[in-house]
């Protein structure tokens, strides 16, 4: 079953990687095992639960049913690319503040899906957020706090002073 390796170029969180992969290798395995980015988790391996969601050229894909060779020459964003060092992205901060996570396993995929929603619809209604994240399963939270977190992050992401990691935000109570 050993197959010939194929050379691909992936730009992941802004960094370019040239890799040799088996054509059958999944994008999620290449991210986790070859590039050492285990923040993208695997939930169902058949494209249903959304846990492995990453952005491929700014559109969400399920990395568990995407072949790495399909991402050749393209740009991938993962949860590891959201924060700037210790400074969290507004979505990460609002998920923290609103308790949009418990076990944290669905969280990276949920965050990347939320990034896509807010990039496409910068000022969403609660229903748009609820329907938007229905693509991703969470077994812990019951979703309400996730919806609240995404809604709270929206104005921060579309503000005229876009999120700047060098400016500290006010510490929360």
């Amino acid at each position, binding site marked *: 079953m050993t197959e010939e390796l194929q050379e691909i170029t992936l730009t992941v969180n802004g960094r370019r990687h040239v890799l040799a992969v088996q054509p059958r290798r999944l994008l999620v395995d290449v991210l986790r095992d070859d590039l050492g980015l285990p923040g993208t988790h695997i*939930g*169902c391996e058949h494209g249903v639960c959304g846990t492995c969601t990453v952005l491929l050229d700014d559109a969400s894909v399920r990395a568990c049913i995407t072949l790495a060779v399909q991402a050749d020459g393209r740009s991938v964003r993962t949860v590891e690319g959201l924060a700037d060092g210790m400074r*969290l992205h507004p979505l*990460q901060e609002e998920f923290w503040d609103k308790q949009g996570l418990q076990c944290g*396993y669905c969280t990276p995929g949920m965050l990347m899906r939320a990034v896509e929603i807010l990039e496409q619809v910068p000022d969403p209604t609660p229903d748009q957020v*609820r329907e938007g994240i229905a693509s991703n399963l969470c077994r812990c939270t*019951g979703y309400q706090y*996730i919806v609240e977190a995404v809604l709270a992050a929206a104005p921060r992401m579309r503000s005229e002073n876009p999120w700047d990691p060098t400016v500290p935000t006010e510490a929360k109570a």
Partner: protein
Amino acid sequence: MTGTGYVGRAVRRREDPRLLAGRGRYVDDVTEPRQAYVAFVRSPVASARIARIDTSAARSAPDVLAVLTADDLAGHCSGWRGLLSWPGMVAGEQTALATGVVRHVGEPVALVVATGRGPAEDAAELVEVDYEERPAVLDPVAALEPGSPLVHEELGTNLCFASPFGSGDVDAAFAGADTVVDVTVRTGRHTAVALETRGILAAFDRDERTLTVRISTQAPQMLQTLYARLLGLPENSVRVITEHVGGAFGMKAFVYPDEIAVAAAAMLLDRPLKWTQDRYEAMQSDTQARDERVTASLALTADGRILGLRSQVVSDAGAWSMYPRGCVTEGVQVATIMPGPYRVPAVAADLRVVYTNKAPLAVYRAVGHPPAILVMELLMDEAARALGLAPDEVRRRNLVRPEDLPYTSATGNVYDSGSHLESLERAVALLGPDGLEERRRDAAARGRLLGVGLAAFVELSAPGAMFYGAKGAPITAHDQVEVTLQPDGSVTVLLGTPGQGQGLHTTAAQVVADGLGVPLEAVRVVSGDTGVVPHGSGVWASRSAVVSAGAAHAAAVEVRGRVLALAGHLLEADPADLELSEGVVGVRGVPGTRVPVHEIAAVAYWGTHRLPPDLEVGLGAVGSYAGPPYTFNNGTHVAVVEVERATGLVRVVDYVVVEDCGVLINPDIVDGQIRGGVAQGLGGALLEQVVHDPNGQPQTSTMLDYLVPTAYDVPDIRIEHIQTPAPTTTLGTKGVGEAGTAGAPAAVHCAVNDALARAGAGGVFRQPIRPEDVLDALDRAPASR
């Protein structure tokens, strides 16, 4: 605890920044040098004798290191029986890999070790197994008929356990009743669907003869004891590491055959081995739950007072009694929790737990409560209809009242405190009954039937040592927490229980900061390594806010006492006159004397020459919890649903929870537990069911087939708290992790039946309530209505 400290405050969870950054450490995220990968060969049939296994093709496949079967592990891993000392309970002997017989689809038969996961899975397909199929036993009632095929021939029966429960003269209650109502209810077979599948990374150090197991589990210390026992190692040579766990819900509280097979293979092959379960394996081999067939009747007076309750419960245990908790807890709780928050003077429950050729049934969030509460609440609604009373009124007339407390149920459960009636009144008020008629008309204009469902419940939480331990399982309640004040005034907390997202590091820090008298930021919490932390029984049964927090408080108070004794010497004051708060020692009533706690601690570590020889200088203490046999939280849920007449689809449009879990350590964390719990209960009511074909093949082996709630299915939930402190627990806490899941299936179900009744249709008495069940009920309604 007063309200001035950290307990009671919604501080942000300290666990979260790492998880939000994608820097959690779940089992599959960690890799060992020399690590190889395991893939399993699993039974494709529900019942068969294994006639032959040929591993030769797999052994010679590329990158394969070994192929092991039961014969290879014999002598390296003992077998076990999932027995508890319930009178008459029987269980077959189980081995890590199936020995001679397979009893459910997905049972592990052989394992393949290769240098990569892909080659291991490829080679697993080359293992040839000849199965001599037998008729599968699938219906637990038919399984008790004479002549039924047997799941375990050695037992001579499919009956795992049978027992009556209850007390009081039930025959007299029914003979004297003005009204008797009855229901026959079937609940769906669930599985937990933790988003992180099970997994293990096992490494054996052949020189030290130590086994290190990194595993996704709820009960690391229990696994340490049992792995040591089954693998023939001293307990001090087994270390279980559990960092982050991506959901568990009761399903990860066992010795699983596949997991211990990996550990045994790692020892045998002298090579670190990783196995990460895939979802297909999870749907076949994770524990399942809730599959109950219940017939129950309720005897009442003409004015709606309950006289007695009868029930027959048949619990479908699947093929194995899981080790070590066994398979009967679910059924026992269905039988004994059923009277719930109501005054039921006489109860006669008859439980039978039956083996079938399915994946094992075991504990799952709110063990047994959802079917028990569902049956009781359906009976209450039937009684309301029979007597012409409003659903809340018939409940009001029967709920335990403050003057009844402490109340002992006819099944022997003691409710130490609570707000059973008040929670109902507050939930009805929070729903806003005045607006309901308008909401009904609005729904009707959109072709939908509005229904309202009530569920008043109690939830048994924080069970003590008698629950499992006294019945022979290594599961106890005396969890321990170690608190150490460091020389610089910082505090280290070693927590026996790691948790799976319940925020236990945060709540432990809150409890210790208050109990010791230091700022929250000074406290660092460590858990997840049995080589480091003290004893604990794991995270299950809504216990951590009681048991773990109680132990943390005990340790903190002990250290505080030692600090004050030292300070008394150094300040030449009576320790009884000293106080320690926010990291500063002061003399009561003397404003000028304030000494930072680090100055005291520094003396205890490095300046002991300043102390008399008989003074205790150690500033670390292990606290343990020794509480009551259990406590109970209580509450009332109200669900509002809309049933679409044309399609039978049900949507939950409003949801109210009034919960009394005693003292709240962190209100946000409590609300998170309730919301997530309700979502899981809603899934049980409307979506979730493991389905088998007539040969025992699971038909729900992907997440496309087994439906769990999405954001679109779960409404916003309105929550109010009543805080009746538990009189018997350290902090007055009662635990809450399962309360949402306990009440929701009944509230949602009663709401659907209310909507149907308003259209003149009879109710549905199975879960999940599928659209076709709703349409059937509507079709059967008399046209005149």
